[in-house]
């Protein structure tokens, strides 16, 4: 709860920001796209024309450069996109998946180690999880974080039991 969502996301966003500044935009964000029918009689198979022009020039006459009659069948559209948004979001998503994957791996390793160690350690962790909120407040930030994580883990266990073991929900 407290741990990954609050303390991880801020440095994470900073990290994403650094990556984004480092990459330069190579792709245009505007285009004028004209779609015309093919004309096999004149041996013309090309039917999409794309150019980066100012909006006023986005017409069939400017882009396709053919007679007016042919242009009646063409449709020109001026389109804008934002590659920076796409870049930011894709990198954000990839990093998020990476972090979650790493966290999952760490959790799995820890669980493995703990289950192969002697039991008192796990017992202690469980007790800590049972502490009342007041007692928890007296401890430092890390202790609170620890117990929040424990509480969260218990909830995940509970959800797992409902969904995967008892099949009481979501089947």
């Amino acid at each position: 709860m407290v741990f990954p969502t609050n303390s991880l996301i801020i440095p994470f966003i900073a990290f994403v920001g650094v990556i984004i500044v480092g990459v330069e935009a190579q792709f245009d964000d505007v285009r004028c796209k004209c779609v015309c029918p093919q004309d096999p009689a004149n041996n013309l198979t090309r039917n999409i024309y794309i150019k980066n022009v100012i909006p006023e020039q986005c017409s069939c006459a400017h882009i396709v450069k053919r007679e007016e009659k042919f242009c009646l069948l063409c449709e020109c559209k001026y389109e804008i996109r934002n590659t920076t948004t796409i870049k930011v979001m894709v990198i954000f998503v990839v990093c998020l998946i990476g972090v979650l994957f790493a966290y999952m791996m760490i959790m799995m390793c820890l669980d493995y180690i703990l289950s192969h160690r002697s039991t008192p350690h796990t017992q202690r962790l469980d007790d800590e999880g049972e502490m009342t909120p007041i007692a928890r407040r007296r401890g430092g930030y890390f202790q609170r974080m620890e117990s929040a994580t424990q509480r969260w883990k218990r909830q995940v266990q509970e959800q797992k039991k409902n969904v995967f073991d008892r099949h009481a929900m979501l089947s």
Partner: protein
Amino acid sequence: MEQIELNHCTSPAMANNTSVDELDSPIDRYERIGHIQEEEDDDLIDITDDDNSKSEINFRDSTQGLVEPLEDIPIDTGKYDDFHTIDWLKDIQKDRQRHKRIHRDRDKSPLNKLKAAHDAWSGWLVVFLVGVGAGTCAGIIDIGASWMTDLKLGVCPQAFYLNREQCCWAENDTDQLKFNDKGCSKWHTWAELFNILGDNAGSYIINYLFYVLWGFGLATLAVSLVRAFAPYACGSGIPEIKTILSGFIIRGYLGKWTLLIKSITMMLAVSAGLSLGKEGPLVHVACCCGNIFSYLFPKYGKNEAKKREVLSAASAAGVSVAFGAPVGGVLFSLEEVSYYFPMKTLWRSFFCALVAAFVLRTINPFGTDHLVMFYVEYDTPWFFFELVPFLLLGVFGGLYGAFFIKMNLKWCKYRKTSKLGKFPVVEVITLALITAIISYPNPYTRMSSSQLIELLFNDCGPEDNFKLCNYKHNYTLMLHTGNVAASPAGPGVYESLWLLLLALIFKGVITVFTFGIKVPAGLFIPSMAVGACAGRLLGIGMEQAVYFNNDWGIFEDLCKPSTPCVNPGLYAMVGAAAALGGVTRMTVSLVVIMFELTGGLQYIVPLMVAVMTAKWVGDAFGREGIYDGHIYLNGYPYLDSKREFVHSTIASDVMRPRRADPPLSVITQEGMTVEELENLTTESSYNAYPMVVSKESQRLSGLVQRKDLTIALANARKFQEEVVSQSQVFFSNHVPRYSLPGQPSPLKLTKILDQSPFQVTDQTPMETVVEMFRKLGLRTCLVTHNGRLLGIITKKDVLRHWAMLKNQDPDSIMFH
């Protein structure tokens, strides 16, 4: 709303409510103490945590000064346990008191005025925030999913974050780019990256291998993330949200982790090529946003009934961003998910859907200025004779819906009860592998379902030169008239027909096995894809029939040779609506969603015809839609307001205790000791105890919630040292002023007693009782005869009774 208010006014214990005003400050104080004791809500407790320690100190200060042991301990926690039903009436009543308090204090200071103003607009503010949240999530998910989907086919080496369409966006040689694998010079397939160029077997195998490997990898990642972090993130979410909105608590279902994991794994699952959509899960994501933001406003965060108003609005925003259909979203919330939907919520849903659509439009995830990938724009008219094929499509949709619901529920039941359910991860991975291996050879299943729908909805112009649009156009005529006339189909179209038929069968079957696996899985998109395939097939058939039989009477008048006549894309759209209507049994909202997708009002009638027919045909085979089917399968306590109660039983048939059961555990108004009450709460597991005047008369005087009683007793033990095990507990006002010497001091607990429980006589028909539970949102109802308490009926008793009358296993209703 009116009904609830009405009932308040007629409630016999109205007098009790009026006195609450004078108690506000102690209630505030004690309410917070209640929070210390109870289990913490997992969702966003950090926000409320902070004042707990302070309030505890305050309380200590104030109690130590007390000499009088008769201090009341009013505790109204307003929090429910996991898997419990909420009491709508009590919650709304509580909110009214809170509102009154703020209203009355308004003139005391400018700060209070500000507080009142904040309270007044917080309803709009919270739905604004929810809309922003839902729109942002949808934007990220759309961009991420379309990028990851294309990752299966290749990459854009110069800018890895662009999908194929965006990679070739500004490229001039983008002939036939959109719907095939080649792409442009900037886009590289996996084979090309390994320097295997050209159209040979080697490149095909490499591409095939990567396609399957990516599908496998993404599905594995999705299912392991769901398993490790948030098991509640799997599935579509709509059945559960319907249940939650009907007044049920599922803790953690709308929490932060569910939101995060569902958003991430939704992208992964869609990109893995599994036959599922992200539209249903988006509703769940929006509701998570609704829940999280409502914790910023105690008015909503601490009141479950009020929170459900925000969630109704959030589900509207979810559909709004999923389909780019704000009005359709509001109607979806009204028709399909919401239970309690007053006008105020309608407007807020409208606003929320608007904000969400606006935010998504600003993000512009597809670079097309449209909110969905398969937005289409038609302007061809439709003709009267086409209603016949539209009807046929409706019949197909209904049949497919019935087939899908039946088979899917059977499969889910099998998964629930057999060994298969023990291997959720293996199941997902196997299914992903099978789907990927079968999908790749057929170009129509190789592309994502959204792309397939876009392609099928597309109106074939002469400019399109992919196989589905391979018509023998007469270009001279076209240049002459400026119109795209109907033309005979070329070989590419005939080839496409076969492929589309195969795609239809494959998608139709594999979705039965996919819906219900343990990754986020919606079924809007797969159902629409199935319907769109069928519609397109019929559309092409009609188009050719009209072209070749132009001299027939009905065709002759309407279809001129030089004008476009039958538009197969429209048929695909009608088919999609019909299939979706057959599966979900939605009507009004579905039609509105579909016409918002097309932006053409003239297609409403075809859509209405198809959707209505689909519903009729589907209902003939089974009345419940897929979401209701899953609700019953999982045994959620959902009292459907659409079903009618047709049996003639009476309240005494349903109430507990039954004849053979031990008598009801009741509390007497006075005379019980603290110890007796404590034993009662530990020994029995009932959630509420009726209170009687005395054991002999059994005359009803009220109802006490177990949770309140436990907390009140624990608090009394903790803070009032005079209270011992033998102290008498008084729930009435007849408390002796001074305790007799030698006797322990009494404890007064009037405040936890609900003096206005709902009661019916034992002869009340169950029809009336069911209506009361449905319309008023009751949690429990007491049964009396001549004022004597006979028994108690809970919402789950009603559901069990109903299931029994329908010859179902009453124990299938879970969460007792």
